[in-house]
C-alpha cells in the first residue's frame, strides 16, 4: 500500500469526509439528490478537495444524462394501421 494513498486517506479521515470509494458508492444517490443533507455536504466537500473524484463524477453524471438526447425512433404509421387490423381480427377470434 503506498504512502501517498495512506496520507490522502488520513487527510479525508481527519476532515470527517468519505473516501473516494465511498463517494463512488454515493454517486447514484448524489445525482438523484436523495442523500441526506449531511452526507450530501460531506460528498461535496470531498469533491472540492479531490480533483480526481470531481472528474469522475462529472463524467458519471454525463453518462446518465447523455442518453436522454438520443434519437427516439417512432413506428411507421402504416405499421400501426396494420397492427390495429391485426389486433381487431385476433380479438374477434377470441371467444
Amino acid at each position: 500500500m503506498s504512502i501517498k494513498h495512506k496520507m490522502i486517506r488520513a487527510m479525508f479521515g481527519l476532515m470527517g469526509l468519505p473516501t473516494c470509494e465511498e463517494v463512488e458508492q454515493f454517486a447514484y444517490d448524489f445525482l438523484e439528490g436523495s442523500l441526506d443533507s449531511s452526507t450530501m455536504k460531506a460528498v461535496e466537500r470531498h469533491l472540492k478537495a479531490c480533483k480526481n473524484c470531481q472528474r469522475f463524477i462529472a463524467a458519471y453524471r454525463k453518462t446518465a444524462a447523455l442518453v436522454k438526447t438520443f434519437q427516439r425512433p417512432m413506428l411507421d404509421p402504416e405499421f400501426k394501421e396494420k397492427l390495429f387490423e391485426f389486433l381487431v381480427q385476433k380479438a374477434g377470434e377470441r371467444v
Partner: protein
Amino acid sequence: METLPKSRDFQPAAASNLSEKELIQGLREKADWAFRELISRWSDKLYRLSLRFVKRPEEAQEIVQEVLLKVVEKIDTFEGSSSLYTWLYRVTVNESLMRLRPDKGKKTVSWEEVLPKYESGIHLENFSDWSKLPDEKFVEKEFQQFVQESIELLPDDLKTAYLLKDVEQLPEEEVCKILELTKPAMKNRVHRARLFLRKRIEERYVH
C-alpha cells in the same frame, strides 16, 4: 363519427386522459377505439425499448406486435392489481431478451472489469472528465452508435435496468416493479452500467 385520415388516429396519447381501467374495459369489449388507444399509447414506447435490445427495426416491430397480441389474448385475466403499464414493459423486456438469446456467444463484460480500483479507499487511476468534450461530439451519429454498442455489451441484468431508468427515463418505482427488484438492487444495477459506460467512453475518446 367524423372521418379523419386513418393514420391521424394514432396521435401521441398525451391528449387522452382515459384511465388504464377504462382502456382495459374497452379492450375486453373489443371496442375499436380501445385498440387504437392501446396502439397510440404504447406502441412507440415499446418499439423504442425493444429496438435498444434487438437493433433490427423489423424485429422490434415483431416484438411490439407479439406483446400487444398478448394483451388482447390475456385481457380477461387482468386484475386491477397488476398495472397494464408494468405488465407491458415487463413482457417487452422478456420478449426482447429471449430474442437476444441466440447470439449469446458474444462477449459481455463482467462486474469486476467495471469496478474502479482503490487503495485504502483512494482511487488508483486518474480519471478524465470527458463530459467537457465539445457538445457536438455527443450528438454525432458515430458517438451515439458507440454508446449503443457499449450498452449491448452489458450483461442482461444491467442492460435492462439501465435502459429503463436512464434511456427510457422511467421512475425508479416503476423500474423496480417491472424488473421485480428492490430499490437498492435496481440502483446498484444502474450504477454499474453507468460505471461501465463512463469507462468505455473515456477509453475511446480521451486516451
